[in-house]
């Protein structure tokens, strides 16, 4: 069974973010970049699907600059078979990204197209369902586990206050969240093999970005707080302050 995974290169979630000159983008100096953690779950899910089926290929696709090759190699080291880099400038306009991906994926024989539920930079949570809509494919978002059954896939997704079970006809698009897919570590052998796996590069067909970042700013500073007290005896004063001063209880 063939599976495609769309991934993105993002700053490490532990990284401190500094805003660059002109306030239109972050300053990447000294920032470690990784594959978005949700995309790692998706890669793991794809590898397990292929393993369970006993045949097929896992293909990684990303839209980004040259440095995204590193992200693709990381996924190949985990066990993906091949990768495609759609060379272009990443944009906050998720629909522009989705169009470039849909142009690449249209007509693909893959049974499943997986995404991370969101990219850990823009946090927009939109490229997966947009790509599915453009391709006319069914889509489930925020999937924590799934199982392929014949010509359909049964998905478990977290919703407010519960879990939904959805059945989708294949081919389908799923966006994966943290669930049962703890990503495997790349073995040394995997890392060596990744260097020889095919990585194709072509121009991305993004078109115009119609959502532009005018300005980036740091979050508003919080006024300095105070220590109410030490140990359990502080509880009464804390509750009084929450009621009378903060109006929060």
């Amino acid at each position, binding site marked *: 069974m063939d599976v495609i995974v769309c991934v993105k290169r993002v700053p490490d979630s532990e990284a401190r973010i500094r805003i660059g000159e002109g306030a239109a983008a*972050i300053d990447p100096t000294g920032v470690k970049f990784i594959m978005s953690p949700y995309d790692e779950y998706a890669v793991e899910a794809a590898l397990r699907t292929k393993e369970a089926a006993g045949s097929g290929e896992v293909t990684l696709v990303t839209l980004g600059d040259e440095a995204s090759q590193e992200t693709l190699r990381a996924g190949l080291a985990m066990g993906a078979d091949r990768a495609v880099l759609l060379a272009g400038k990443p944009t906050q306009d998720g629909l522009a990204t989705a169009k470039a991906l849909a142009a690449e994926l249209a007509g693909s024989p893959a049974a499943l197209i997986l995404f991370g539920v969101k990219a850990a930079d823009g946090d927009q949570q939109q490229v997966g369902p947009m790509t599915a809509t453009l391709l006319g494919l069914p889509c489930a978002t925020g999937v924590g586990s799934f199982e392929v059954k014949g010509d359909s896939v049964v998905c478990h997704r977290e*919703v407010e206050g519960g879990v939904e079970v959805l059945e989708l*006809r294949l081919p389908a698009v799923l966006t994966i969240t*943290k*669930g049962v897919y703890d990503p495997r570590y790349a073995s040394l052998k995997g890392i060596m093999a990744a260097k020889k796996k095919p990585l194709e590069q072509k121009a991305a067909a993004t078109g115009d970005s119609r959502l532009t970042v*005018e300005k*980036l700013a740091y*979050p508003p500073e919080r006024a300095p*707080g105070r220590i109410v007290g030490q140990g359990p005896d502080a509880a009464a004063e804390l509750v009084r302050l929450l009621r009378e001063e*903060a109006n929060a209880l």
Partner: protein
Amino acid sequence: MADVLAFAEQRDGAVRGVARESVSAAARIAPGLGAQVHALVLGAPGIGAAAADLGRFGAAVVYAAEHPALADYNAEGYAAVVADQVRSSGYAAVIFPATTLGKDLAPRVAALLDVPLAGDVTGLEVAGGALTALRPVYAGKAFAQVRLHATPALVTIRPNVFQPVESPAAGAVETFTPAVEPGNWKVRLVERKAAGEGALDVSEATVVVCGGRGMKDPSNWALLEALRDAIGDGAALGASRAVVDAGWRPHGEQVGQTGKTVAPKLYIAVGISGAIQHLAGMRTSKTIVAVNKDPDAPIFNVADYGVVGDLFAVLPRLTEEVKALKAKG
């Protein structure tokens, strides 16, 4: 002038609180656009009557798309009906809630209409007839002011940020039966399992009681549950990444960069040191309380009120004090 449409989310036939937030957010930007506010609710026959109350928050018209097949959310059916409504009425902006449903629906509507979408927005402004949105990026480590160069401008708004404001309008309910073809849908809802009676999602709670590694063992969550129950309506449990990674709590409760970003009225961090990725996910909470035995824990840098001490001694007392306060009314 084109109007502003607010998508009104319902579940099990009841209009959800976030629908009032969407309508109120629409009412806030409508004057600058010279627009009226319309609300749109989809559901089983009878949903229109349940949504009539949205007039109180500024909806001049409440469109109700009633069809038995729309009782439960279905992405394909909902996206087509919403896109049709937008196409036929030509809106300047469409506002969805950034809930699980809204974040699933809005991108599909955007793709059907071929317009961009700004997700999880915390601020909306109209200047010179154009809409700009403020949205957190890098899980709240920075905020981006973005401009949407298309009409309608589509946004999802973060729950708890745009407070419902009463602003009475006509609220005329216009019910219609949309053409839906469930036979063509490629997704089927097999079942929905409730996590617990009335369990509230951490992203929609007005009070979040969040536990970290300092809780030492999953069995100790009973202490946090007792505090949550003492606070009562609107309170939900959250968890740090460390305890979710350890398998103590479900990922649905995780607050932080690889979990949910929350903005409750009150955030109580218990036994959480305050890793940068956690702070990013909760720092826009209105009031932050931290209980930690380490006075140098970074969580105290963002906390309005801190208690330094053993949480196993502090929590029961805190719960007692909250109960006493609630008993007084």
